């Protein structure tokens, strides 16, 4: 009984947990509404989900205004500016995905209520991820965001492609998490504790040992899968192609961001002392990812698949700063966060346009974009902005993201960093080559099938488009906006 009495109630900072709880509440609400009203509640679901996401932003804002850094459970769960920024990013991305989903899910043969439940659950996992600073939390958060995503990928139940997408995603995801877990077990074994601080202390000191190398490597590989880094990317194109398009957007943006967030925390908090492992690892992985992703993308004919490979390559860009994680930690985090924020909007925007166009053409082939500029100039311009942003051409947002990479690399300096910078430069060029193929179709080619009826953009899609377009341009013209977030996150992540 002594033992039982010894239990001290953990001190919970409810304000810090308010975002998670709000999200949880709305998830539960949706489930309950679903159970009670069943079919009749369908109309309300997206609204509810959207409200849930927006409502969750409220405590985030209050926390941000409050500004104090909150740490619980001995540093296992931290709410700081970094986590808040990313939580907000997840929620906004989620909101845009919900907007994208409204018509798509309603018009298709889908389980609608559960769709939103799972979406919110996955987002809950992501929101959790950005605060997690220990192995168990990270692991659970990862699974919490992944498992619903596996199912969402297979959500088009009658579609063999969607099923297959789900299976591939699931199996590869589980493989990867097995490897990651094994790595975590080794890391845990060396540190004897799960919190990142402890791990950093243990790994950062002492001579190199192969178990540490192995542990770190396996953990990183697990997340490299999540961010679809080559050679762990193989699931991504197939899954993206097969999954329902809003889910694809969700995977390409939110899920990848979550993986990156986990990597940031692991690399910059836990493993920073082992730069002899992380820097070469990320050098190789990022270079491979960019190059392979871009090269394969050159040969794609399906727009979603093209965006999938583009996403892989973008992931490669995001991994670049990790290659100088130890040499220029502040700039590296900043670069990744900035990239994530901009990437979220530009990529979601591109997917929104794909959705909007597919509503008319019912096709995912790039050829079907022929002459888009003639009959849907607005969409064509929007797509142009998004693709330009992805390619990193000012004044569309992406340039600042790429700029951040270069900045981190050059801050670190040295031959390897400069070499990677050149690889990035070359890849920027290759990337434009395939973005240009879409541009070419939209602008230079005649209308496909001669069908030039205009495209009706639904309200929700229009809203998604507006949000992403404005954000993308704003980041490009006034990069200070996003740059500010990046800077904030640096201070806290390193401080905490």
């Amino acid at each position, binding site marked *: 009984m002594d033992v039982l009495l010894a239990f001290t109630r953990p001190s919970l900072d409810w304000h810090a947990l308010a975002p998670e709880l709000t999200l949880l509440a709305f998830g539960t609400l949706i489930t309950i509404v679903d159970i009670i009203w069943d079919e009749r509640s369908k109309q309300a679901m997206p609204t509810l989900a959207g409200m849930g996401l927006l409502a969750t932003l409220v405590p985030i804002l209050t926390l941000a205004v409050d500004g104090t850094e909150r740490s619980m459970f001995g540093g296992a769960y931290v709410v700081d500016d970094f986590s808040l920024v990313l939580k907000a990013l997840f929620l906004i991305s989620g909101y845009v995905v919900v907007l994208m989903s409204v018509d798509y899910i309603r018009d298709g043969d889908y389980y609608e209520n559960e769709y939103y439940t799972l979406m919110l659950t996955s987002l809950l996992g992501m929101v959790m991820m950005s605060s997690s600073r220990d192995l168990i939390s990270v692991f659970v958060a990862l699974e919490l965001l992944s498992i619903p995503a596996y199912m969402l990928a297979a959500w088009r139940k009658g579609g063999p492609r969607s099923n297959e997408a789900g*299976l*591939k995603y699931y*199996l*590869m995801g589980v*493989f*990867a998490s097995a*490897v990651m877990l094994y790595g975590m077990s080794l890391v845990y074994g060396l540190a004897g504790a799960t919190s990142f601080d402890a791990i950093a202390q243990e790994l950062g000191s002492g001579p*190199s040992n*192969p178990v540490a*190398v*192995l542990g770190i*490597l*396996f953990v990183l*590989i697990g997340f490299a*899968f999540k961010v679809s880094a080559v*050679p*762990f990317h*193989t*699931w991504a*194109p*197939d899954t993206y192609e097969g999954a329902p398009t809003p889910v694809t957007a969700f995977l390409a943006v939110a899920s990848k961001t979550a993986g990156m967030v986990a990597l940031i925390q692991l690399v910059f908090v836990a493993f920073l002392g082992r730069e*002899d*492992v992380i820097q*070469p*690892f990320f050098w190789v992985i990022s270079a491979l990812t960019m190059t*392979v992703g*871009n*090269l*394969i*993308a*050159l*040969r794609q004919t399906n727009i979603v698949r093209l965006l999938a490979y583009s996403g892989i390559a973008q992931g490669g860009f995001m991994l670049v700063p990790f290659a100088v994680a130890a040499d220029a930690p502040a700039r590296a985090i900043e670069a990744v966060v900035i990239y994530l924020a901009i990437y979220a909007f530009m990529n979601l925007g591109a997917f929104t346009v794909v959705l909007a166009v597919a509503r008319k053409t019912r096709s995912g082939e790039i050829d079907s974009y022929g002459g888009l500029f003639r009959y849907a100039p607005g969409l064509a311009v929007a797509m142009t902005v998004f693709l330009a942003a992805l390619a990193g051409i000012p004044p569309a947002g992406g340039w600042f993201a790429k700029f951040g990479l270069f900045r981190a690399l050059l801050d670190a300096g040295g031959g390897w960093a400069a070499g990677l910078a050149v690889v990035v430069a070359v890849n920027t060029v*290759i990337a434009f*080559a395939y973005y240009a193929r879409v541009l070419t179709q939209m602008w230079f080619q005649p209308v496909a099938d001669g069908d030039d009826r205009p495209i009706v953009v639904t309200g929700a899609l229009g809203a998604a488009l507006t949000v992403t377009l404005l954000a993308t341009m704003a980041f490009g013209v006034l990069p200070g906006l996003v740059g500010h977030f990046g800077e904030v996150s640096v201070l806290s992540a390193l401080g905490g």
Partner: protein
Amino acid sequence: MWMLENAFIIPLIPAISFVVILLFGKRFIGPDRVHVVGITALGLVWVLSALAAFQWTQRVEHPPPDAVVQMASHADDHADDHADDHADDHADDHADDHVVVSENNSGDAHGGGHSSPLIRPVISTFSQWWSNGGIEFSVGTLVDGLTVLLLIVVASISLLVHIYSTEYVKDDRRYVHYYAFLSLFTAAMLFFVMAQNIVQLIVGWELVGVCSFVLIGHWWEEKPNTDAALKAFLTNRVGDIGLLVGIIVLWGTFQTFDIDAINTLIAADPGAHHLALLVAACCLMAAVASKSGQFPLHTWLPDAMAGPTPVSALIHAATMVVAGVYMIARLYPVFYEGLSVGTSSINLMAFIGGFTALIGAALAFAQWDIKKVLAYSTVSQLGYMVMALGVGAWTAAIFHLFTHAFFKACLFLGAGSVSHAAHHTFDMRKMGGLKKDMPHTYRTFVISSLALAGIFPFAGFWSKDEILLGSLVGQKNSYPLMLIFGCVVAVMTAAYMTRVIWYTFHGEFRGEGHPHESPKMMTTPLWILAGMAVIAGVFNLPGPVLEPFGLEGLAHRIQTYVEPSVYLSGLGLSHPDPSLTMALVGLALAVSGIVVTYLYYWRRVGLHGMTERNRYAKNGYTFLENKYYLDHLYNDVIVETVKRPIANWANRVNQNVLDRVVDRAGETARDTGRWIYKWIDQGAIDGSVNAAARGADSSGEGLRAIQSGKIQNYGQLLFGSAAVLAIVFVIVV
């Protein structure tokens, strides 16, 4: 002195005329009346030029204090070096001391009329033209005797050509443009001659080249004309490399573009910068060769006869082609020091000039086109001038330039008049017997020919005599080879002009239609020019000639007024004494040329039928001419005399080598271009770019193989890479 200081007005007038004609010619003035504008402008130019000339003479006669150079001490030092050389000259000076050497500036040690004080040119500069590196460069005018001489020449000839052209190109469809570009040319030429700095020289140089291009290609519907225009321009461009580089070398050496400064600097310290000056002079010689038709860049000039005849008279005989000669004269210290005119036996300039004079004369024999004969004659005469400059006979060269302008212009206009009468042909084989139909043309033509041949007392006699004398005496060393060249050319000149006159005006008329005398508007200029051809010599008569008339004060006017002694004084030039012997020899040579030719044509004396007997001659002849008049092959005469090898060889070389060089150069450049474009640009460079793109594309295709779609393979890749990475890192780290 107002005119001298504001000389810029002179080129401005024709420039305005150009703009007016071009912009308003067709619409407001009327296409058939634009010549009024041009002629008015030129009249004004002539008056102002005359005024300038007068004011210059005043300046020389009554120099204002600031116009006289007070010699700096170093000039005296320099003078000592040459004191011995000049001692003889001074001792020999009899009557008329115009020897301008450095040591006699401080007064007129030798008494007698007008010893020349060193008169500064009038230099006016306007505003800042351009600036670079903090240095401001002005545009301005430099007016001295040489300038005003050229002003007079250009203004006179241009005015006459303007007048002449009203008839000659009447009803031409591009009458307006014709006059516009005549005006522009005049403006450019005037601008050129009063250039204050060498950049202005380039500007004028190129502008006259362009006008020449436009006017040669005036009838651009026919390809040969445009070919000729292109050839002229491109050949000049080749020479311009030399001009550019030469001027740059001068800039690099003296850090100034100012002509006055450059000349003064060299004159002040001859011998310094010898290497730079040598390079500069050689480069500039290339430019001179191209512009003034010197060997081996002379080939464009005969082709340029494709332009209207008055244009040939103005540009390709009297003015533009002497630009090279003018430049040498203008920058004489550069050439003098650079090519060591004063010391060595033979220099590049003298040789090129002499050689050009020779082959020009030789080639003139082989032509049937009257204009081409005249063109080669021009080449030859320009060679004469360059040779004169090369032997140090500055004044002689400029004097010859002066006289030559008039009689050659007259000859060209005469040829134009003939062609006007004879159905626009220039082929002498379609002329003949025009003497009676065209009395004015005939008479003026003969007068000018005599002047050209150097027959006493026509203008050419005096100037040619001075050149021969210059070659005889030379500067310090003699130039015997040049003298030989000069003498031979004198004979040949007389001979080929006689041939022209024979074929054109004597014998039977072989053309079509009825020839008639040209209208007054054409003959008047002819007469004026012919008049000048007669009297132009008086401007530089040697003293002994005038002595009997008590007019020795008027002797050597050109030398007095024109020679820029302020620049030349430091060089140690001397003026040879007039020599009656030389004059007689020169005259004899000319007469003999005429006589031989006369006998050949009029009396049928000579070696007709040579070609039938002589294999070489036949071959040579076949090459030269394979249509008509075998019997009359004038070359036979030459073949049998010393000229045969020269003429034949020269022609062969000229046609086969030199002339082809231009074409070949063009073709080669184009072939090279094609080759480079095809293999290097499109093949290697662009090819590698495209290959990189293709490489990326196909490697993308290859990498797609990874994406087999099979979960097992994906798993293998995942775990396999994990294993490999693990192994590598465990080993390496």
